[in-house]
């Protein structure tokens, strides 16, 4: 093979993989030394954002570290595209329509009370989250009407 061909072939074979390799080696080194990689690191999220993303481990971590499962949290671009929504963890769980998430938050300290049961049941009905609606209805009588209850997302 002529010299120019040998050089060009060597460069085109080695250059793209080496560039990617250097980038991910830097990312890997950062991950091993600081705990988070350069590429696709964990992003800080609120408790309700974690619920919206079905991030069960993050939900448990935040509550274990002291996050209150009974107050409202800001939720950006999860329940409503490019918008902030302020909801409680149980309301966020209704938005996911996942009963297991709802039960998880209750098991980890969220209070299902006569005060929030009506709202949650109405949200669940409007979201067609029938499992969650049934779960709430099994503990508190379903409300006669959902008039005035509007989904915040």
């Amino acid at each position, binding site marked *: *093979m*002529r010299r120019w*061909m*040998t050089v*060009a*072939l*060597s*460069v*085109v*074979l*080695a*250059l*793209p*993989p*080496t*560039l*990617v*390799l*250097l*980038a*991910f*080696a830097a*990312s*890997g*080194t*950062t*991950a*091993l030394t600081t*705990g988070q*990689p350069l*590429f*696709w*690191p*964990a*992003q800080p*999220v609120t408790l309700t954002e*974690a619920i*919206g*993303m*079905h*991030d*069960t*481990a*993050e*939900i*448990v*971590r935040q509550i*274990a570290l002291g996050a209150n499962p009974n107050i409202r949290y800001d939720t950006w671009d*999860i329940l409503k595209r490019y918008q902030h929504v302020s909801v409680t963890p149980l309301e966020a769980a209704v938005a996911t329509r996942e009963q297991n998430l709802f039960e*998880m938050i209750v*098991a*980890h300290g969220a209070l299902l009370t006569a005060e929030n049961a009506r709202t949650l049941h109405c949200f669940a009905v409007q979201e067609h989250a029938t499992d969650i609606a049934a779960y709430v209805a099994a503990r508190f009588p379903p409300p006669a009407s959902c008039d005035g209850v509007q989904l915040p997302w």
Partner: protein
Amino acid sequence: MPESMSIGGPAKAGHYIGPRLAAWALGALTAVALAGSVYRVPIQVSDSLEVIERVIPMPSATAAFVDGLHNSPTMLRPLKEVRTRLLVQAGEALGGRYHLVFRGYHALAGALLVALFVWVCRARSWTDVAALAAALAILTGMHTFVGLFRESFPVNHYLIVAVSALATFALAQSRGGWLADLAAIMLLANAALSFESGLLVWPVAVAAYASGLRGISGRGIVLMTVVVVLYAGLRVGYLGKTGAGVGERGTGFGAGALTQEEQIARFGNHPVFLYAYNVTMTASSVLLSQPQIGRFTVVSAWNNGSLPPVFIVQIASSLLTTVLVAWYAFSRGPTGSRRWREPVPLSFLAVLAVSALMSYAYAKDEIISTAGVFYAAAAYVALRALFALRPPAWAGALLIVVALTVSSAWAVRSAGLHLRLRHGAFEARAGWAYVLWPTSRAAWPKDAHTLQIVSRMREEALLHPTVAPAMLPKWTELWWGED
């Protein structure tokens, strides 16, 4: 030294130093990149925690081994139990640092695999180094590679098989001696008693011997064959284990997938057709990146009205690389014989054939992960041979354009490994959210020691946040596929 290991090397030994250092530097970069992503994956819960909980109360490693002999009617993996127990003990000895031990083990095993790959490739010239850079991207970019690291049970036994098979090939390349024979036998026994696919070590040794490598002697090959026979005797004759049959687990078929019940309904009386499909499609998966897990995902994507770039990148890069490997295998070396008889191509063919046969009952990318490793090695020798061509200028220019396309595509694919491992980390961590459920204390481990270890593992997994797939940019799905 066989032909496939000596092309293009410089005449003087002193000239090796620069390329050798560069080759090991590439290997080190690959290992660090891999380790960084692998170490972030928490210890897995499914298929893993039950093994950990089972081995903790056992009185000794021997007891764990004996338990592994008898705890399944189809599987014979006693060293899995022993390894798990040893890692748990090591974690305890380090003050409850189980993540460090389990995930450090996988990161180190990944580094070992990369080191063996670099060793086996034996880059001795700068053109070899260029071929090695592309081959490392092929190694890590293969869709089968992620299966070596993404899951663990709690130790990934596919990784043990791949490392053992590559180490056996490295032994075959060595100067040999009784120590090399003994090491090869130990590797075979260790791999086979860790996982059934560990028997792949034997065809690697046989193919290397048949191609002219004498690092493992004829006597060593005979003894390894005796080990295989003893294994079969233990498995079938003594322990009465059975093989997998139709409906063992779900598998891909055509553009869709078949449940266990569907397989029995369609192929229960005539399983040969399903077996033939699985075997041929498994081999095709290594060569063409389709189907994956027996399923032609490209067809289902096409039917859904879109063809994301991931399919074009995967299929085109695999197709061109397979054409290159086939060209190399069917071309003639300086001695006039076809090059498929050389050590690397022949070992790849042996591993591919045996892996495909092992997939007869159901398709699974992990089963062919070792074949993927040898595919990358075969691509390396084929890429290296390109430099020996004497093309006219126009053909040389065309070759350079095609080479750039292929190496770029594999570079993109190799980046996808890290994305997949992020997905794996998220899933593995999510599993711990359901362990030690606060309102189901009756389901917690009864033994206080086991409970303490499981609690610590859970704490370690939950306290290390991972990126949620929902937070990843949408374009990652287009270029590396849906998870």
